[in-house]
């Protein structure tokens, strides 16, 4: 018999958060949240930290409409989890201050081009470029980067405990 499989991806509108059954210890130590739930309950393009490992972070964003321009002195990566998002890139004329994480910017420089990401697509956000997101319909992004001035930590609000 040939089974047919249905792959379950989540989305802003359709996620089913898991849970923790604790035998010993504190559920807080697992820092458990759901990126769709976090994105659903956050402001558009709020960079909410859902994972933190020393100075490194995973942020989740609700992409909705046009974002401001971001720029970052180091590589970041974005994955679109549940919808279509366009990312425009600008090569900055001036080099960025070497700080961790993204900053807001009004980019001066030449347009490099754009990528259009759909479910499961990942894009490099190259160091030293400005980038902004735009969507027709709201969707969820995760970003790999470093904790920065724009990172929002609201663990007690988002995590199981």
């Amino acid at each position, binding site marked *: 018999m040939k089974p047919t499989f249905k792959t*379950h991806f989540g989305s802003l509108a359709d996620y089913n958060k*898991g*849970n923790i059954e604790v035998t010993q210890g504190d559920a807080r130590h*697992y820092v458990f949240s759901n990126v769709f739930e976090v994105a659903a309950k956050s402001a558009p393009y709020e960079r909410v930290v859902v*994972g933190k490992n020393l100075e490194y972070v995973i942020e989740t964003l609700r992409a909705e409409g046009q974002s401001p321009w971001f720029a970052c002195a180091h590589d970041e990566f974005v994955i679109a989890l549940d919808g279509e998002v366009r990312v425009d890139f600008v090569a900055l004329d001036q080099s960025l201050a070497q700080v961790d994480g993204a900053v807001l910017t009004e980019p001066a420089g*030449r347009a490099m081009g754009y990528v259009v990401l759909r479910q499961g697509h*990942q894009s*490099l956000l190259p160091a030293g470029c400005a980038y902004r997101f735009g969507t027709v319909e709201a969707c969820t992004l995760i970003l790999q980067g470093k904790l920065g001035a724009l990172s929002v930590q609201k663990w007690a609000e988002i995590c199981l405990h």
Partner: protein
Amino acid sequence: MAMLDLADKPETATSYAADKVQASAADPVTGYRTFTLGAFRFSRDAYFATIQWPSHGQTRTHAMPADAFLRAMMRDVAWGFFYGWVNFDHVFGTRNHYGKVDVYAGAFNGVMKEAGVDYTETFETPLIMATFKAILHDWTNAGFDPFAAPEETGSAFGPKHGENAGAIERTRIATRRMPGLPDDSPLRDDLPVNRAFLDVPQDEPTVHCEPGFEGQLHAFNLFKYLSRSDVTWNPSVTSVCGQSLFCPTTEEYILPVFHGNDRVEWFLQLSDEIIWDIGDKNTGAPRARITMRAGDICAMPADIRHQGYSTKRSMLLVWENATPNLPRRYESGELKPYPVDF
């Protein structure tokens, strides 16, 4: 860089310590060789792998089903002994010291440790790598792929019949920044889509570069890439931000090891569901059971061991941190075992 990326190096390690591997002649009945590594003795028969070690002048013995043992050893070899502890089960395992590796029996089992019947011996990485690879080669029969899900491979049991070097010797190219970039690891367009991911869209993102910026923008379909993974429970790096490594993997059935990390590790469930059994890192005593569904993210603290169950093949993003000296910083108490206080 990442231990994960050692996956393409064992060949080298093997070659330069291969002459030091201690193996018996093939057993006339079972066809398998017996191996010794320091005071450890490894033997297998039709059903079981048996590990022996000395304790207070006695020989202690522990057996595991051969399929479980080979699945665990395959991961330990492919991961280059990974971060921290790779528990093959509640008794036997390895601990990575990055250049040297501890092999232990009972040392991270609460009762055996307390009873003093545990044993640990430390080996240079090339010697243990060569020995473990030799065991894998000798003990893996034709038709059994230790990387595959049980529904996708044959039996590991029976007397020795044939071999499966192809399955064991899968090599991986280390990722420097992101797969598909020039001089970086390849995409997986030539691999077939796994039977459990036939419904995963295979479209590629649009990448438009303005003149003069050709090759400077890069995107790929990560879900497509994962849908074509031909192994289970075997993370590989898909993006590198400093010491921060995204290591997604596809999971089906049971993680063949109980991984006890020497640092904090994070999981982001990309599709479907995985259940994690969490135990105390030192004793194995149960701590929690965590159900993760698509979009769930959580941390694996540095003081636990974890083993996952995935019925439907699923996509899991493992997030590792390759910052040097982390084991010492966690062990000294400088860093708490969990990543966030709230």
